[in-house]
């Protein structure tokens, strides 16, 4: 299987994530689309690691997962706090950054 197929697959996943970020209004769904984009990048890194027979890229995928986990914990805490204030996760209501 040539590596181009993996490149195109991760590009497709990344662009689906971008589309989801642009067309949805639910903040949690937007977070999930960001996770999807991070995973597309991870898949591309693993494919390149196989291509060059180098395991540094796989270690970077590991760090990528660390950053994603930290980002999700803080982001979901922010969303929960916002929901407590305004009782909505609609980003058109959340875009004022103060109540």
């Amino acid at each position: 299987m040539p590596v181009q197929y993996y490149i195109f697959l991760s590009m497709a996943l990344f662009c689906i994530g971008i589309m989801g970020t642009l067309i949805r209004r639910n903040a949690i769904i937007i977070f999930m689309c960001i996770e999807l984009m991070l995973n597309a990048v991870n898949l591309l890194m693993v494919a390149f690691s196989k291509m060059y027979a180098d395991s540094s890229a796989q270690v970077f995928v590991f760090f990528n997962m660390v950053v994603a986990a930290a980002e999700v914990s803080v982001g979901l805490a922010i969303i929960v706090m916002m929901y407590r204030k305004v009782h909505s996760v609609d980003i058109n209501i959340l875009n004022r950054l103060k109540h």
Partner: protein
Amino acid sequence: MSIYEILFWFLTIMAISSALGVILSRNPITSVLFLIVTFFAISGHYILLNAQFLAIVNIIVYAGAIMVLFLFVIMLMNLNADVEPQKGRLLQLAGVIAGGVLFLVILAALKSATVLPLEKTSSDIGLIKNLGRVLFTQFVLPFEISSVLFLSAMIGAIVIGKKEETKNPLTP
């Protein structure tokens, strides 16, 4: 068509269709479940690429921890029965066109890129032994720094998510 190619196309179709399901489904719970299916498909791709350790870690961390966190938050907010207001048709069309145009541009740019063929012989770089050796010799400083990142994320999540106490009478 070998079993490898059949598995590749099956996992690819599964990943892309469930990723479309994430952004198209109305119910947030359904979106989370589709995203878990996507992560399992990506883990299958990792196994096909001989990255067994990352496949297991992907399932444990993403499908096990992060998605449970998402589900927990959605159920805590009781959003599963809520009807989400939609963006306007024009805005949705603009978003789809923007994403599609980005896809076309990257596709056109990478179509003629010169790449090496995927290595067939060296199949042990994704095993936990080699990965651990690289992680603890070459990347030991970023590994330790990531623990500080986790600590700060944990403290930040606790501080942000804490219930607001009564107002301090000294502040106006």
